[in-house]
């Protein structure tokens, strides 16, 4: 399951809107595997398009993708695009300045066809280049949740 922060209404009406989405079978595998420091992709058995994170139906050829089609990726890939964020949204619609600029990258993992959009760490904004090799940086203690991916960093 994945969680969303609760947005508290600023009024006397005691309401909050929180969500707790069920993720489905293949995504459960993906999230659990993060606990083992593994990134799984879902490879379409018909056309071979590999999704990250995996999904149970191929968008390109409509085939079903099952748990047995999950494949372990190296966690390394290429930075195909990036931006340097100087602001962020605070969750209720205000644009706030960031204290430190944040690099957000579009990463194509080796062995996968999807592009994932992830924070890039351990790099100075002026040193980021498209085409750089990057790899996943894991949280110290992984717990089998999305937060186990701290960010991606330049590959050693």
């Amino acid at each position, binding site marked *: 399951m994945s969680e969303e922060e609760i947005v508290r209404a600023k009024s006397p009406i005691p309401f909050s*809107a929180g969500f707790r989405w069920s993720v489905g079978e293949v995504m459960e595998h993906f999230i659990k595997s993060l606990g083992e420091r593994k990134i799984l992709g879902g490879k379409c058995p018909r056309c071979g398009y590999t999704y990250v994170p995996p999904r149970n139906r191929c*968008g390109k050829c409509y085939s079903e993708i099952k748990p047995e089609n999950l494949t372990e990726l190296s966690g390394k890939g290429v930075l195909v695009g990036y931006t340097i964020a100087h602001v962020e949204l605070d969750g209720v619609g205000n644009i706030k300045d960031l204290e430190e600029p944040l690099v957000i990258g579009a990463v194509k993992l080796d062995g996968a066809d999807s592009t994932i959009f992830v924070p890039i760490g351990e790099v100075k904004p002026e040193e980021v280049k498209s085409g750089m090799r990057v790899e996943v940086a894991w949280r110290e203690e992984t717990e089998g949740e999305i937060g186990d991916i701290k960010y991606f960093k330049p590959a050693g």
Partner: protein
Amino acid sequence: MWRNVAVIGVGQTKHGRRRDVNTAEMISEAAWRAIEDAEIAPEDIDAIVIGNMQGFGGICQAELWAGDWIGAPGKSVLRVATGGTTGGSVAQAAMYSVISGLYDVVLAIGFEKHSDSKEPGATTGLAHVGLANLFYMFNYGAPMRALFALSGGVGAAAGVSSYQAMFYMHRSGCRIEHYDMVAAKSRRNAAKNEYAHLQWPNCTPDDIAKTPMVAYPLRFGHICPASDGASAIIVASEEIARRVDRPAWVKGLAACADEENQMGENAQGVGILDTSEQLQCRIAAMKAYEMAKIRNPREEIDVAEIYQPFPHQELMYAEKLMLFDDGKAWIALEEGETEIDGRIPIDPSGGVLSTNAIGSSAMQRVAECALQIMGKAGKHQVPKDVKNAVAHGWGGSTNFTVVTVLGDAPRR
């Protein structure tokens, strides 16, 4: 100009608490079942119409993410959402899409995933944006407690429905026992419907009467659940429909808005605050029947799927749909006329009372009528010839209605 179109395929998910799938997978289940049922290839679909009530599941325009699951890329995608009638409005948008001649095969999907919200049932959706509905409840003097109790299970306009149930009792002379009978019938029928949520095979009115009172005259057993689920239909042009054994032809469709009925002081209108009047339902029904060339609905309609999250609505709308005289539906109920094997079966699927994934519910009414005409309703197939069926949807705060008439032959 008008050209004939038909429903050629239906797909539904099992409705209930679906923690085993995410929203995209759930939508996908219904869509692919409909595609399979219609015996077409996904490439044959020209356009997709989809809708749900976004606030309830916490995803804005979910079709942008879920579209990849249902073959949306490369196709025209239209989102339609009208509260409780969403599924019916989506179905009608798909029908207009094909009747217009711009598209030949359109996939229509309605869905809702209530269980993704942290608060029980539909409370988050209501809470997230229920301002309009809250005003109505407070206008009537209903307390917050009642809102929570009712919304624990249901969708919008929950509070007002208890008042509507009282208005109907007063107008028609029926008793709360009749509401128990409608609810029990719904649970029994739902038990014959593999996709329904609350299934209770031998439910009796006494079983319902034993449940606690929530807001008079609505008992806990009278209240629809908040289900997760999706339902889909494939609408096709006449040429393509003729390749199918028994398509369900679209003979008439109409929608009518009378939210002004409730505006009252809020919007400086003069409201007739009897929520059981439902003028817009009568208008929509008249238009749809006229289009379908049905002059005597009482005789010509073989089965009705009415949007009834609360039991009084099955009776009330049956009258507004001109299947019975005003105030007389409860007599037919007593005499068993509205049972699956009765003269005019109402909600053989169990209806919204037993299954309510809001975005899907009004679509299911259309889908169920199509199934009855196609002879594919399985254990809840009515044991009679189905020449004409009427599908009804209700929503808005209390006064928005869609009516669709399907038949076993195109309109002449």
